[in-house]
């Protein structure tokens, strides 16, 4: 079994791991770092439930090898809230009824975060384009788009 030693920074904390080369970043997040907020569904980069933010960019962690993430900063859904207080994006998802079964939610929220970090004032169309890689079987997306727009407004009002 050919393995590699990697260091990844997950939600601000460095982890040193030895992984088989074929392990994906998703495998490592869930299995080695034990953060199960990031979900596995299609395992092929189609559904977005495995979305994490890697070096500032939203990616499907199921098609990133753990070795490719060596030295990189990873943000998972667990890293979004601060000491028991939800991030405004999370609060708006709750407030706007954008969560039903909750399975798509972590990926959806991280995609929203990546969008709003780049574009603090997106149009509804820009939001839809941004979440095109995140499937939701429950909500019909309307409340999700509203939640993201409403979170954007809240985040803009916090910045001076």
């Amino acid at each position, binding site marked *: 079994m*050919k393995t590699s030693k990697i260091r990844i920074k997950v939600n601000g904390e460095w982890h040193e791991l030895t992984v088989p080369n074929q392990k994906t970043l998703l495998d490592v997040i869930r299995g080695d770092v034990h953060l199960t907020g990031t979900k596995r569904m299609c395992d092929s*980069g189609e559904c977005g439930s495995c979305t994490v933010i890697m070096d500032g960019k939203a990616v499907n962690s199921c098609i*990133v*090898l753990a070795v*490719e993430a060596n030295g990189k900063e990873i943000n998972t859904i667990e890293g979004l809230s601060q000491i028991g207080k939800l991030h405004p994006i999370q609060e708006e998802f709750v407030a706007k009824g954008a969560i039903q079964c909750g399975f798509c939610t972590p990926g959806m929220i991280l995609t929203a975060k990546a*969008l709003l970090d780049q574009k603090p004032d997106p149009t509804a169309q820009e939001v839809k384009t941004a979440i095109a890689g995140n499937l939701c079987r429950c909500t019909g997306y309307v409340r999700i788009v509203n939640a993201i727009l409403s979170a954007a407004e809240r985040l803009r009002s916090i910045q001076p």
Partner: protein
Amino acid sequence: MENFEYFEPKTVREAVRLLVKYKRAAKLLAGGTDLMLGMKEGFVKPKYLINLKTIKGLDKIAYSKKDGLRIGSLTTWADILASGAILEHYPILREAASLIGGHQIRNRGTIGGNICHASPSADSAPALMVYGAQCIISGPRRERVIPIEEIFSGVQKTSLKPGEILTGFRIPPPDPKAKGCYLKFSPRKAMDLPIVGVGAMVRTSNGTFEEVKIALGAVAPTPIRARRAERFLVGKPVSDQSIRQAAEEAVNESNPITDLRASREYRLGLVRELTCQAITRSL
């Protein structure tokens, strides 16, 4: 996925050496949006995986008025969409990039990977073709440059020789009098392959077609130029009739298959319709 030995070369020369050493048992890794799927399904089982992203300088975009565009093969779709030079001077390529995958895929997928995976439906191919792009290839011998059309040799097959790596593309300065577009027909607005893709670039003068380029994706074993349609239009008046006749030529040059996405007949109909639309939008 099966286990493999993993390499992070720092230079193209190092990567070439690895490819030459391990031959068919080695695979190159760019964005991984196609390769990882193949490896998970067991279609591809490399014993040696060579990560190209660790080579500095393969993801640069450089534009000059005199020389046009140099774009590294490891440039991601997100990088292409963020490029001011491509926005201003190569909008057809930008249009193609915006239609690929979704946000997460565009952060990883690369233009070189798209071309080297060599799907007949590769979205960047028609755009690169109508821009007259050239492929820059490094290998065990000296660097060579070939027109984009020549890199495709079959379904998911390139003409790259053993040990060769596509390092980038050269696109000549755009014709300021020409306009073009890329039309992609797919059931979903994102995360989908084209059932048919049409790229066009057109220059007219005094109501006559002066220069025409038409490229088609997903209607042949490789992306193709519709050269008979192009030659037909040059010198013809700009009219619905000449455009429709050109589209008919494009249909005759197409040879699509029937697969789970569409029948051959449907694809031929799309070629007819989309070629008309693409030319019209480029006027």
